[in-house]
């Protein structure tokens, strides 16, 4: 069954592509910018979905696609003109279709009411135009009929138990041969159904001078005894029934033995003769023994074939698992290359020695291989952007706003793992922009803006990261209100001095919501703080900037991949640790007066007059029992998801490096304060810190007991 599963997978992938085609086409139709090709493409896409769905028995999908297709067929044929209203119906139908595809793929079921409503709308469109019901009516359920039409009713009525005798008179017309049917094959198939005899009537064959080589002059009478039933016999002639005279009669007396002129024994000879006759006009093509091909022609032929191969194989499909394995191996290659180079350096090889130069070249190559392999997983963000028009439509519909969507940079590429997790935060940002940013049409008009607001979503690469901007031309953030709310909820002190930017970014604080009543949309219980957290979980950052009256811009930046990470390598005790660069605000060397004790055994550090908790990481992780003198160490200022800053104290900073992320959970489990592991140039494992957990945990412990948890654990174990 795995072959079928593969095809199923292909089907859903293709459906996604076709849904894009449908949506893009319908939007063009809505804008009045659709030519015949666009309409055809939309029709074909829906038609293909129906065809594939039929094969997998997705009956609801088939039924709906059929109704949709019938309406599109009317558009295609020019019987139905698409204006704004019709386009809306078609777009809604596209949404339902997309949901049905998702449901077939194991997603949530589709609201039957919505489906019915959409079907009704579509039917009504057809009804209005009148006389278009034809395509659908007669075989409205045709898509649901999984019995190939080649089976006729007799067949369904059940075949006869015993053998029946048939007398078949078959007189082909010239058209039968012109369509590449062969009398000979049909006769042979008849005989394959049972036992029988064939008589050929050559009476109509003219003299040679009058003979049209492509004419049809022979007729046959076949007497057949078969248990297969008349339907099976008719089925053989199904393709040719209009290109021949055919009578099929039941013969009452079983008379297999009764030899017709010619008789059994002659059949072979007869067939051979007929073959010679029939094959003549077709001799050139009918792939009889391969004839020696002149070398030149042969060469041309193979070249063509090769070109053809190139044309169809410009992309290949590879299981993700294989790519991941390759990425792992290349990661290994990088590590070993670095290790070798370090060993060579330790061994005292001169920097300009041939070996060292060779290592440089190897390093260059290895990096290139790594980049290339990573690029295999890269995909355009298009697949995420594709879902946006519908989202905008729905949110606009619910909020009663009029919103247009502009997307840019949809071919910007990013690692598949990032793509998969991009969708949710992007969705929330757009919801937020429409719900809170864009004004209602009357307000917009009053403000001298076009009634329709615009959401612009743009993707771009910027300094090794992908940046996605969601901007709206709405009212912008109402800073006094935001400030009041933040103060009211105790998120900031009443007298806090905040810049405009800082005020705007208050909306990312947990517990902040600008609307008193949670609207239906933001109602999924998701605030911007959650958005920010999920973006940060991907090693990303998000911020907002706003201009009152003109609109806001959400900017989110993400790493291009989740397989590698930019980190700062630090030492704590004897261990190297990696701090994700995205969490780091700055590094500093503490002076004696900056650090003060707080409580029993906690410390605070004064950074430009704000006091931050100082966490001795080596202590926190249990590498050391007693804290080091902060003045001897280095402080890395980090910001956690909730915007809280903390100061991490390490022994030293080694430098910045891109590291390959390795799972610690695969063979071990989760470790508090540790996000993952990586392998350093010396082949040793280094842990990548989970800054959020580390700081949150430290804070909690400071409050709870002042006793790091690991100590009690280890002591208990010992």
């Amino acid at each position, binding site marked *: 069954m795995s*072959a079928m599963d*593969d*095809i199923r997978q*292909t*089907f859903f*992938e*293709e459906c996604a592509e076709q849904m894009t085609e449908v949506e893009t086409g319908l939007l063009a139709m809505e804008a009045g910018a659709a030519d015949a*090709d666009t309409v*055809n*493409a939309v*029709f*074909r896409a829906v*038609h*293909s979905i*129906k*065809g*594939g769905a*039929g*094969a997998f028995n997705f009956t609801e999908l088939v039924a709906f696609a059929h109704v949709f297709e019938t309406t599109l067929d009317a558009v295609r044929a020019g019987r139905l003109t698409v204006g704004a209203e019709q386009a809306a119906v078609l777009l809604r139908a596209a949404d339902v279709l997309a949901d049905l595809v998702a449901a077939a793929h194991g997603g949530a079921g589709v609201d039957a009411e919505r489906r019915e409503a959409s079907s009704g709308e579509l039917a009504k469109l057809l009804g209005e135009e009148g006389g278009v019901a034809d395509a659908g009516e*007669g*075989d409205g359920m*045709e*898509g649901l*009929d*999984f019995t*190939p*039409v*080649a089976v006729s009713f007799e067949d369904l009525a059940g075949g006869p138990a015993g053998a029946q005798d048939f007398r078949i008179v078959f007189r082909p017309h010239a058209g039968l041969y*012109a*369509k*590449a*049917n*062969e009398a000979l*094959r*049909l006769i*042979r*198939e008849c005989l394959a159904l049972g036992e029988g005899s064939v008589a050929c009537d050559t009476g109509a064959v003219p003299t040679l001078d009058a003979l049209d080589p492509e004419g049809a002059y022979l007729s046959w009478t076949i007497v057949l005894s078969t248990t297969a039933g008349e339907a099976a016999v008719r089925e*053989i002639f*199904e*393709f040719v029934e*209009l*290109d021949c005279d055919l009578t099929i009669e039941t013969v009452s007396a079983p008379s297999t033995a009764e030899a017709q002129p010619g008789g059994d024994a002659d059949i072979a000879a007869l067939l051979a003769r007929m073959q010679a006759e029939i094959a003549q*006009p*077709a001799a*050139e*093509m*009918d*792939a009889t023994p391969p004839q020696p091909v002149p070398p030149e022609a042969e060469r041309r*032929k193979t070249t*063509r*074939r090769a070109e*053809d191969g190139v*044309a*169809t194989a410009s992309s290949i499909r590879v299981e993700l698992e294989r790519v991941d394995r390759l990425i792992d191996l290349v990661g290994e290659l990088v590590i070993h290359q670095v290790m070798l180079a370090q060993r060579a350096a330790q061994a005292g090889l001169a920097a300009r020695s041939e070996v060292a130069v060779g290592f440089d070249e190897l390093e260059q190559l290895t990096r290139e291989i790594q980049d290339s392999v990573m690029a295999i997983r890269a995909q355009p963000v298009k697949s995420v952007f594709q879902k946006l028009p519908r989202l905008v439509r729905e949110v606009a519909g619910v909020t009663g706003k009029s919103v247009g969507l502009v997307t840019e940079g949809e071919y910007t590429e990013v690692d598949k793992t990032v793509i998969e997790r991009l969708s949710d935060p992007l969705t929330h940002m757009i919801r937020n922009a429409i719900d809170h940013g864009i004004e209602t049409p009357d307000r917009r008009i009053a403000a001298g803006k076009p009634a329709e607001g615009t959401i612009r979503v743009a993707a771009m690469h910027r300094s090794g990261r992908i940046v996605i901007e969601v901007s709206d031309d709405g009212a912008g953030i109402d800073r006094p209100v935001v400030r009041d709310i933040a103060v009211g909820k105790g998120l900031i002190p009443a007298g806090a001095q905040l810049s405009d930017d800082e005020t705007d970014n208050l909306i990312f604080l947990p517990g902040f919501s600008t609307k008193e009543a949670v609207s239906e949309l933001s109602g999924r219980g998701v605030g911007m703080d959650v958005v920010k957290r999920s973006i940060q979980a991907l090693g990303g950052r998000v911020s907002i900037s706003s201009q009152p009256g003109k609109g806001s811009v959400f900017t989110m930046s993400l790493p291009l991949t989740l397989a590698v990470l930019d980190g700062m390598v630090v030492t704590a005790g004897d261990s190297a640790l990696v701090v994700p660069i995205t969490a780091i605000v700055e590094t500093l060397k503490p002076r004696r007066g900056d650090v003060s004790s707080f409580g029993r055994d906690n410390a605070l550090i004064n950074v430009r007059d704000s006091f931050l908790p100082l966490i001795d990481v080596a202590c926190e992780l249990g590498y050391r029992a007693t804290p080091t003198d902060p003045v001897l160490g280095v402080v890395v200022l980090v910001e956690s998801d909730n915007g809280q800053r903390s100061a991490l104290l390490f022994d030293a900073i080694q430098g910045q490096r891109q590291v390959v992320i390795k799972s610690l959970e695969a063979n071990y489990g989760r470790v508090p304060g540790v996000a993952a592991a990586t392998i350093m140039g010396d082949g040793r494992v280094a842990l990548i810190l989970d800054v959020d957990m580390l700081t949150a945990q430290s804070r909690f412990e400071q409050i709870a007991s002042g006793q790091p948890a690991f100590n009690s654990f280890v002591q208990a174990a010992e």
Partner: protein
Amino acid sequence: MKTVLTIDDSRTMREMLRRTLEGAGFAVVQAEDGRHGVEVLEACQPHVIITDVNMPRMDGLEFIETVRGDARRRVVPILVLTTESDAEKKARARAAGATGWIVKPFDPQKLVDAVNRVSL
């Protein structure tokens, strides 16, 4: 081994055809639309062609007409894949010169039977 050229713009359908036909011992050559099919015919001589009707660039009916109009290829049996079971669509396929048709969704055995019927 007999070669079948399948022409369909749907990857799903191409795959299903390929698996079914290869499973039945046919060699399969694929094309994505009528024009591509015509190009492929320059390079290979299939024993049977299976073509979809609705396709971009060149649809199935045009494709059949093109093949039937080419003295070198006109005797190749062509089966039309169609989701339409109504007589009118079949008549159009027939008028264009189709040898026979297969109704989608197809039953694998029926497909192989149909191919055998026109190519044996």
